[in-house]
């Protein structure tokens, strides 16, 4: 009888653990995108020059961004992808239906990817998170550091080559901070173009994205 209570306790604990370990299971999923235009509604993409709303001195994002987007779209889109030159006013407007119909003659299954882009740099002050302990109370040190923030703002239109109608419009804005105030603009342009691509493609092409979810065991 002396061993009864420890044995009973052990049995109860064992039974309890049999239904334990029920925490959620984290999973990473490759989820399909949701294209803003119905599948099959266009068979060709013509990427035009973008209007430059705020070009930096030594870079032309209105040309470089469409070049980059056209190359990247060509890697994932099954149909033809080409570049076209249009006046900045036509891209930023966008131009009237008749302009796009004329420009798209012979490419009725195409959509134009057009719009405007601004790339601006700004030196900003921010709180320095790493202040040495021996300088915590040093009045000469304010705890502020300067960094360079590059911001890319893109206004994108999808225009039907058949009707000249704007099928979709989106505004995308991304920024990157750099500690080096003399960081060449090309670095920021490259990083920001990639962020814009990552946001634009799921909506434009329905490309998939990686998502985190948690499954339940019981």
């Amino acid at each position, binding site marked *: *009888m002396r061993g*009864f209570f420890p*044995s*009973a306790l052990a*049995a*109860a*604990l*064992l*039974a*309890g653990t*049999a*239904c*334990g370990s029920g925490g*959620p*299971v984290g*999973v990473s*999923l*490759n*989820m*399909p*995108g*949701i294209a*803003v235009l119905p599948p099959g509604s266009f068979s060709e993409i013509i990427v035009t020059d973008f209007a430059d709303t705020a070009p930096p001195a030594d870079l032309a994002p209105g040309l470089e961004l469409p070049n980059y987007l056209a190359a990247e779209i060509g890697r994932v889109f099954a149909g033809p992808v080409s570049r076209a030159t249009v006046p900045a006013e036509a891209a930023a407007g966008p131009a009237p239906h008749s302009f796009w119909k004329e420009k798209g003659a012979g490419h009725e299954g195409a959509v134009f990817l057009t719009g405007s882009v601004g790339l601006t740099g700004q030196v900003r002050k921010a709180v320095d998170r790493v202040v040495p302990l021996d300088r915590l109370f040093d009045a000469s040190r304010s705890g502020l550091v300067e960094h360079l923030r590059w911001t890319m703002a893109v206004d994108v239109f999808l225009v039907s080559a058949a009707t000249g109608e*704007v*099928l*979709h*419009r*989106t505004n995308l804005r991304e920024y990157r901070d750099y500690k080096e105030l003399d960081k060449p603009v090309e670095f920021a342009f490259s990083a920001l173009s990639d962020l814009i691509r990552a946001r634009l493609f*799921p*909506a434009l092409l329905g490309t998939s*994205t990686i*998502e*985190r*979810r*948690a*499954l*339940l*065991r*019981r």
Partner: protein
Amino acid sequence: MRFKAIASLAAIALLAAGGCARSPASGFLAAGLASARQDAWEDAARQWAQAVANDPGSAAAHNNLAIAYERQGAWEEAEREYGEALRLAPDEPTIKSNYAAFKARLERLRGRMP
């Protein structure tokens, strides 16, 4: 005396186990998890749909099935299953978090029409 002790021991174990009785969905839930771990999401969806059929009150089964539907791009079905999971377990943080991520993604991708 000895028999009495053994019987009492068994009764205690059974009582303790009874507190976490397996639901009719638990076998299918586990099978679905195993399939999902092997990236066999269609099979996982089948298992969790069966779990829902066997135990419509299982919030876990609805949650998991919603995720499988998301994986297939079946947004309306996913919305329905998340809704049911939240109705059954409105305070379950995992389901709330999954649903918030699902809604945010849908709005991010859909909310850009002119």
